[in-house]
């Protein structure tokens, strides 16, 4: 993961996560960029939620997260997701 993620991309990802997990009563600003999504009580993520996010990222950004090892590394925080998306986008546009 090397390409830098913009604040806009991070904000987009926060909204996508909330929308995908159908979380109400939490605004994107309340989600910390660097804190583990598993440790944010408002989200209460489980392994199925991780797969939901993986599929949502693929539909929105066309990025593939093939296996569970990679999913565990990427779907850790907003920051790690955004970096992954930015890197994958940079690869396809190169």
């Amino acid at each position: 993961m090397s390409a830098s993620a913009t604040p806009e991309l991070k904000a987009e990802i926060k909204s996508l996560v909330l929308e995908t997990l159908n979380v109400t009563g939490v605004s994107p600003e309340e989600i910390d960029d660097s804190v583990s999504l598993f440790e944010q009580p408002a989200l209460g993520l489980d392994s199925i939620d991780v797969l939901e996010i993986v599929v949502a990222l693929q539909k929105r950004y066309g990025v593939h997260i093939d296996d569970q090892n990679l999913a565990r590394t990427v779907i850790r925080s907003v920051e790690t997701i955004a970096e992954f998306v930015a890197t994958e986008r940079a690869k396809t546009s190169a």
Partner: protein
Amino acid sequence: MIEPSYPHRMAAHCESGTLTGLFNHAGLAISEPMLFGIAGGIFFGYLRPRGLPFPTFVVRSRPGSLRKHAVARLGLRCETRTFRREDDGMRALDRLLDRGVPVGAQVDFFHMEYLPEYERVHFNAHFVTLVGRSNGHYLVSDVYHPRIARLPFESLRRARFAKGEFAARGRLFRPLAVPPTVPWESAIRAGIRSAAFAMTRLPFPFLGVRGIRLFARKVQEWPRLARDEDHLSHEVMSIHVILEDRGTGGAGFRFMYASFLQEASRVLSDPDLAEAARGMMENGDRWREISLFVARIGQRRDLGPARLRELGDMILERADDEERLFGRLLRKFPRQGIFSRFGVRL
């Protein structure tokens, strides 16, 4: 012995990842998807094994077959040994490790104590690389663990000699020599041919594409086999576990196979294989949708006949697509069997 220099890497699947690591270490530059594809690892089988109360399915070829086929098709020399006596098996391992030789081993997953307890189940066909020993412990390169792990002597002994289905009998394996010229093209063709044949032409109703169709039909009868709603929900959600959680490279190995086809298209300079890779990737996406679907309906206990019919239809579509994809691959690389020598196409 000090911490070894074996280049440990995580991988998607234990058998293909372990073999890839060992082959790389022996001097063969090969990726995990390439190894999986050459070995013809992709498969489907809907099974009701004796001793298991509920049907299940497999998405890859039999454990151990990746090694056998990859070694034969790539022209490697490899040593494989099993042992009647545990002491002999442990001594043979120690001798190799003391010479600094990393060795692949088949073990019972349950005894891999460095992994979280909730993940560990008894499964005799887990694969790891043993890379050294020190202070009463073996040093284990396990592709599901982020770093080289330490495992007590006795735990490894139990893991190597556990009894039951797929009993390893202490199995050890290691590459001895890589040929000066690796027959990449013929190996890729043979791998595709064998997988496509197994998926489309095996004359058994529970294997390959026919097996997917049987699964689509039978899953709708699962409520009759389940004890109660909780049991049914558990079994339906296990579809998700088999497709995504058990080191499959994603969507029941379909993503890994797509990566193989992509790489194969570059090696053979064949745009048809790149097209097949795109088709396999889309097929993987649809399998992943099934995975998500079963997780959702299982979690919500939304398991009525209409939902299971919907699930059956989704699975049936996978059978249709895989029949097209593998059928095309088999026509491209037909089997050269005794019948084809007489002009008969199977």
